[in-house]
C-alpha cells in the first residue's frame, strides 16, 4: 500500500464530503499531525507511514455534515463502538480504511535515541532509521511500537467504505493480558504504592480524556463539575486518583484499547493499564470486546437474569 493509493482514495471521496481527515508531516521528522482537507490541492501533503499514530475518529461525534476519515484497524473499533452507542450517523461518515501492521511510539523512539533532536526519519522494510546529531540509528519497528501493536488482530480495519490497498492478515498472537496478570501478582501494598506514585505526577491536563474517542462528555465531564462536586481543585493524590477512576469506570465496556490516552500523557502515566484490566475482566465475565460488532450492546448497558459468571460473594 503506497501513499499514492491513499491520496487517490481521498481525492475520490473529497467531492462527497465537507472535509476529509488524514495525516500530514508534523513539527519535526518524527511527528505526524491530523490534517483536515477541504480542497483537492491539499491532498498532496497527505502522508502515510508508521508516524501516523493519532486516532482520527475522536473528531467524529463533534463534527457536523459529511466527514471523510482515514482509519487504521485500531481506529476502526471506534467507528464500530460509535455505531453501537449511536454517537454518529454512519451514513454521514465516509471511512477510508488503511491496512496497518504497526505504528511507532514517539516516546519509545526518543528513549532509543537518547532524547536527541531528530533530523531525519526514513522507513526501510521493518525498520525505522533515525538521524540525530549523534549519528544514524536503525531500530526495528517492533522494538518501538506501542503495546497494542504486538497483539493487534485488525491489520485490516473492521469498517470502511473504501480500502486504500489490499486487505492483509495480522498473524499476531492474541492478547493474553500478560502484563495485567503479572501486575496482579505483585503484593497489594506494592500495587497501591505504584499507583500512588504514578498518579502523583498527574497534572489533570485532561489530555487523556479529550483524546479518547469514547469520552464525549467533554464540557460536562463530572471530573470538573462543581455540582455535584465529585472532585475538588486540590492538587493531591486523592483528587488525581479520583479523576482516573472516573475516566476508567466511565469507559468500562466501552474502551476500544486504542491506547491514545497513554500515548498523550505528558507525564508518562500508564493510564491504559487500568482500562486494560477492566477490558480483561469484562471479556472474562461477559465475553465482550468493545468496538468489534456494530450490533453488540456494551455489557454494562444490559443484563441477564441468570449470570453464569457472577457468583454471589461470601463474607
Amino acid at each position, binding site marked *: 500500500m503506497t501513499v499514492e493509493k491513499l491520496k487517490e482514495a481521498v481525492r475520490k471521496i473529497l467531492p462527497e464530503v465537507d472535509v476529509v481527515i488524514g495525516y500530514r508531516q508534523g513539527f519535526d521528522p518524527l511527528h505526524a499531525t491530523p490534517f483536515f482537507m477541504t480542497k483537492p490541492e491539499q491532498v498532496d501533503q497527505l502522508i502515510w507511514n508508521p508516524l501516523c499514530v493519532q486516532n482520527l475518529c475522536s473528531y467524529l461525534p463533534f463534527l457536523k455534515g459529511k466527514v471523510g476519515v482515514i482509519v487504521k484497524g485500531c481506529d476502526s473499533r471506534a467507528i464500530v463502538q460509535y455505531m453501537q452507542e449511536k454517537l454518529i450517523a454512519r451514513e454521514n461518515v465516509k471511512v477510508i480504511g488503511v491496512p496497518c501492521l504497526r505504528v511507532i511510539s514517539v516516546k519509545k523512539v526518543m528513549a532509543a535515541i537518547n532524547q536527541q533532536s531528530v533530523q531525519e526519519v526514513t522507513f526501510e522494510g521493518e525498520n525505522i532509521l533515525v538521524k540525530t546529531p549523534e549519528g544514524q540509528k536503525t531500530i526495528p519497528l517492533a522494538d518501538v511500537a506501542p503495546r497494542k501493536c504486538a497483539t493487534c488482530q485488525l491489520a485490516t480495519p473492521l469498517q470502511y467504505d473504501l480500502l486504500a490497498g489490499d486487505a492483509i492478515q495480522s498473524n499476531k498472537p492474541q492478547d493474553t493480558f500478560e502484563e495485567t496478570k503479572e501486575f496482579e501478582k505483585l503484593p497489594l501494598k506494592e500495587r497501591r504504592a505504584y499507583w500512588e506514585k504514578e498518579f502523583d*505526577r498527574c497534572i489533570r491536563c485532561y489530555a487523556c480524556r479529550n483524546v479518547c474517542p469514547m469520552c464525549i462528555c467533554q464540557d460536562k465531564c463530572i471530573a470538573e463539575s462543581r455540582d455535584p462536586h465529585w472532585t475538588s481543585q486540590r492538587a493531591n493524590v486523592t483528587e488525581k486518583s479520583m479523576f482516573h477512576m472516573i475516566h476508567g469506570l466511565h469507559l468500562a465496556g466501552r474502551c476500544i484499547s486504542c491506547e491514545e490516552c497513554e500515548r498523550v500523557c505528558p507525564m508518562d502515566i500508564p493510564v491504559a493499564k487500568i482500562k486494560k484490566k477492566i477490558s480483561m475482566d469484562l471479556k472474562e465475565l461477559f465475553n465482550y470486546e468493545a468496538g468489534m460488532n456494530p450490533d453488540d450492546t456494551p455489557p454494562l448497558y444490559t443484563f441477564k437474569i441468570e449470570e453464569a459468571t457472577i457468583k454471589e460473594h461470601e463474607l
Partner: protein
Amino acid sequence: MAETGFLPKEKLPALLDALSKKFQVFAPVFEGDVVLFKRFASGVELCLTRPANLPPKGIIFPQSETLFNVNFKKDPEDLKKTSVELKENLDFAPTIIFGGRPCDAQGFRIYDRVYLETDIADPYYKGRREKTTIVTLACNAPSPGCFCTSVGRGPAENEGSDLMMTELEKGYFFEPITEKGKEILKEGGFEDGSAYKEQAQKAHEKVSALVKKPFATLEGTPEKLLSLFDNNQFWEGETAKCISCGACTYLCPTCYCFNITDEQAGNTGERIRSWDACMFSHFTLEASSHNPRQNKHQRLKNRVGHKFSYYPKKYKGVIACCGCGRCIRYCPVSVDISEIVAHAQGA
C-alpha cells in the same frame, strides 16, 4: 570575591547539599523517562541534559494553593451568632530553583508584570517570588520544537535568572545576574570563573545558531493577529485538530491564568487558587450559562492572541511566549503555535 565562578562537575552534589541546609532546593530529577522539578535530596539523580517536562512554575505559582482557611464558630452563649475565623498562609521558605532553563526563568518575568507590577501586588506570588533564587542552566542544544531566538530570547538569555550556569567540559561556569545570584557564589567550592567567560560565551553563540527559526521577525505580528480576529475561516482551519485539553497551558512556563474555588465541609473550609486553562471549553462559561468562547477556534485564537498580540500591546512589545516548545512537543495532535503565527503573518 570573584565576579564569576567555576565549579568542577564532581563538586556539584556537594554544593546542592550545602544549599539545601539553608534553602529548599528544587532541581530537575528523573522519574522514569520523565524529568520533573522535585525537592533535592542527597543521592538523587539530577537531570541536566534536557528541560523538565513540567516547568518549575509550580514552585512560585503552585498548581493548587490555599489562600486562606475558614472556620465558622458558633457562639456557645448565643447560638444565633456565628463568627468567622480566617487564617491566611503567607509564610514562605527561602527557595532555590536550580537547573531550570532560560525559557523557564522567562516565564517568571512574564508573571511579574501581571502579578507584581500593578497597583495591588499579589501577596502570595510576591511572597514566594521574593524568597526564591533562580539558578538557570544555559542550554547546550535545542529541544524538539523550541524556538526561543525567534521570540526575542535565547538559550543563554539571562533575564529572569539570578545566576546563570553554563556547562563546559570539566565543570560549570557561573555568572551572577542579581544580588541574590552573588550570594550563591559565596558558598564554598567555587573557583574563580574569569578564565572561562569566553568559553561560555562561545558555547552560547554556538547553540543560538542551532535553534530553529519558524519566522524571521515578529515585527507587526501583534497588529496582524488582531486584524485576523474576525477571520473565522483562518482560525477554524488552524484549530480544527485541537482537542481542547489543557496540556499546552499547564506545561507552558508563561501561562498564568487561575481559578478560585471555595471548598467547604461542615464548619471548616478553604479558598483555593488553582491553575486554569483557556483551552478548556468552560473557561469563559458565565453564571448565566452564556459562553463567549464556546468554540475551540475562539479559544485557540485567544491563546495565540494573548501571547503574541494582547500581552505585547499591553507590556511594551514583550512577547508572552518564551519559545520553549513544550506546547508543541506534548500536544496530543502536535498543534504548533509557531506555525500558526507564521501562517497568520502570511495570511
